[in-house]
């Protein structure tokens, strides 16, 4: 799979005062590829995507879409980028059709072409039956689908989706996924998909970037991330209070990549559970009472925990 790179960032940075929301991010997206940006609330996903959409001025670094600088060639970049903002950006007092027609006109689409595009995107989000109704009367999920439809109007070469499926029911979500996959397959478009849903990232994305505190810690195919992480999680339930120094000593064991405590359970990421499980239990016993033990294979979730020390599901 040797596709052309259509998007590239170099040291892309966004600061709000002292806060660094996006911290020197380097990554590339190829044509026909869906890249997931997986990160918790406040990771800087929206900030990163907004810069690529040309609505937020970078504080540093550069980014290129189809070889064009996103700042200097902003107008031409916007022609080929589709952006679906995290917050709904449609006019509630207009109908779905009127909304689409308005945005299509701003892309310079006219007459028959505009009508075709509109019915095209309405099909994709399955809202054709509701097109004539005021958006105010839509359900939350339907508004989200319309929001997505607007981003597809210009048949973008690069599609930026900022958590587009929050509040969308599973059936519609699957349909949206299928549609996006089709677009990617048929038109070779590139998609950046931000989410804090592990399953979405695993399901939809060709590659997943683990994104925390404005940095991409790892970016690879989900299965490679899992494989590379070494692959095993030891989960030990306990009673009592686990001290910081014991946790630190566990993290320092050979073959342990990370350890986190969630509620009354310790999760330890390792290449080789067999070699260390005895030591771990022994050390725990010095301060707490272990109550259960489980060893499981790696998942994207455990990889995320291993790499960032954080859970996506707090």
């Amino acid at each position, binding site marked *: 799979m040797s596709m052309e790179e259509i998007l590239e960032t170099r040291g892309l940075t966004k600061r709000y005062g002292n806060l660094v929301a996006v911290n020197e991010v380097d990554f590339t997206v190829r044509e026909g590829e869906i890249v997931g940006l997986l990160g918790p609330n406040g990771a800087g996903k929206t900030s990163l995507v*907004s810069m690529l*959409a*040309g*609505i*937020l001025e970078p504080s540093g670094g550069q980014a290129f879409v189809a070889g064009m600088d996103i700042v200097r060639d902003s*107008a*031409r970049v*916007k*022609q080929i*980028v589709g*952006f679906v*903002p995290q*917050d*709904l*950006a*449609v*006019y509630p007092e207009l109908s779905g059709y009127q909304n689409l027609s308005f*945005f299509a006109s*701003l*892309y*310079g689409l006219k007459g028959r072409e505009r009508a075709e595009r509109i019915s095209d995107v309405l099909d994709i989000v399955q809202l054709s039956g509701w097109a004539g109704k005021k958006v105010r009367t839509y359900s939350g999920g339907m508004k989200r689908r319309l929001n997505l439809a*607007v981003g597809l109007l210009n048949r973008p070469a690069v599609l930026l989706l900022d958590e587009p499926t929050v509040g969308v029911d599973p059936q519609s979500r699957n349909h949206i996924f299928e549609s996006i996959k089709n677009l990617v397959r048929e038109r070779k478009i590139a998609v950046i998909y931000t989410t804090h849903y592990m399953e979405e990232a695993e399901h939809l994305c060709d590659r997943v970037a683990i994104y925390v505190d404005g940095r991409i810690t790892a970016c690879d195919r989900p299965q490679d991330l899992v494989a590379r992480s070494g692959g095993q999680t030891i989960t030990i339930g306990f009673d009592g209070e686990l001290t910081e120094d014991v946790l630190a000593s566990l993290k320092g064991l050979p073959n342990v990549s990370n350890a986190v405590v969630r509620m009354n359970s310790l999760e330890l990421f390792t290449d080789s559970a067999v070699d260390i499980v005895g030591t771990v239990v022994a050390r725990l016993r010095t301060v707490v009472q272990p109550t259960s033990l489980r060893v499981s294979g790696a998942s994207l979730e455990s990889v995320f925990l291993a790499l960032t020390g954080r859970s996506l599901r707090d």
Partner: protein
Amino acid sequence: MAWITIAWKDIRLQLGDWVGLIWLFVTPIIVITVASFALSGLFNPTYQVFTVPVVQLDHGKVANQIVSNLRKLSALHIETTAMNGAGKVVPLTIQQARTKVQSDKAAIVIPQGFSRDVANGKQAALIVLQDPTDKVVPSVVSNILSKIVAGIQLHDIAVRAEIQGESNAVAALSAQVGHPLRFRLNPAQIARSSQAIIAHGQLRIQAQSVISDAAHTPSAFQSNVPGYAVMFMLFGTSFAGASLLSEKESGTLLKLRSLPIRRVDIIGGKLSSNFIVALLQAAILFAVGRLVFGMWLGNSLAGLCLLIIVTAFSATGLGMLIAALSKTRSQATGLSILIILTSSALGGSWWPLYIVPHWMQTFAHITLTAWSMDGFNQLLVYGNGLSAILPSVTALVVMGLLFFSIALWRFRWD
């Protein structure tokens, strides 16, 4: 109790929003202050000194007498001169006086040959130029003038009667001494003119309106329709301007910025729609004024249209400026109400500017309302044409451009 919890939350929210506070407390205080200063003349128990322009085209004895008697009155400030184009002080002309009447409401003209006509016992008239929009000042001036004239006449008649008596005495004396004694005055002539004055009665005081179109006496609609049109155009444009902020809050502005269009297009589109709505608003108000209340639209429809257009333009600019200076829509609403109510009280939407103190009339011209109302008065009250509203048109265009530039410069897109 739930209602206490709800009340407490709402009070906290309301008192925590400084713009809300402005609108609730500061705006009424400012509007009350402005309105009270404006109307101070109506309630002040000490009388107001008003300015009366006097055009003295005759410098004979009687004319000078009248002017000097006028000057003795402390209630009047008599103005006989004006600055010419070169900055020199020259006698006031009738043309200048006519213009001044629009603010001073009355002026006196002493026509050429007045003193000679009086001396010769011919019909002589003083002219009081008056603005029929004001019922008080012109009649006060006419009254004062007729008292002065009556005083001069009485004095004159008395003097003449005395001279007559003297000359009769001289004649009697001449008869006694047997040869005519020379008397400096011609007794026959004096007798004739005194008789004439007594016969013809008083000098006349002639009222003359400065409104060129006498067929249309101005009604209250002439100033209320434009006054409220300007105020509500300001409300319309400032609320419409604030819709830019609600687009910012709702996220559609962000979306628009991700499209391959220029920022100027986004602002320009907003502006144009606000401008057109303001025009429609004015058109409907004036149409209702004309069709329902029979309001006279002046002598220059072109002038009226031009003035409405430039007023809508600068109002739109002000609306954008308010939006640009506010962070949220509710801030913009508070600021709009403050600015609009103050401008309306200060600028003459609610009452004619000539009734407010002089310093305030000048100060009022920081508002677009004052300029606009000046123009509407020229057209609808005085029946003047295009050239009379050029200062207003210029000021409104300049203000509009200024508002737009500052708005573009200060608007925060993020």
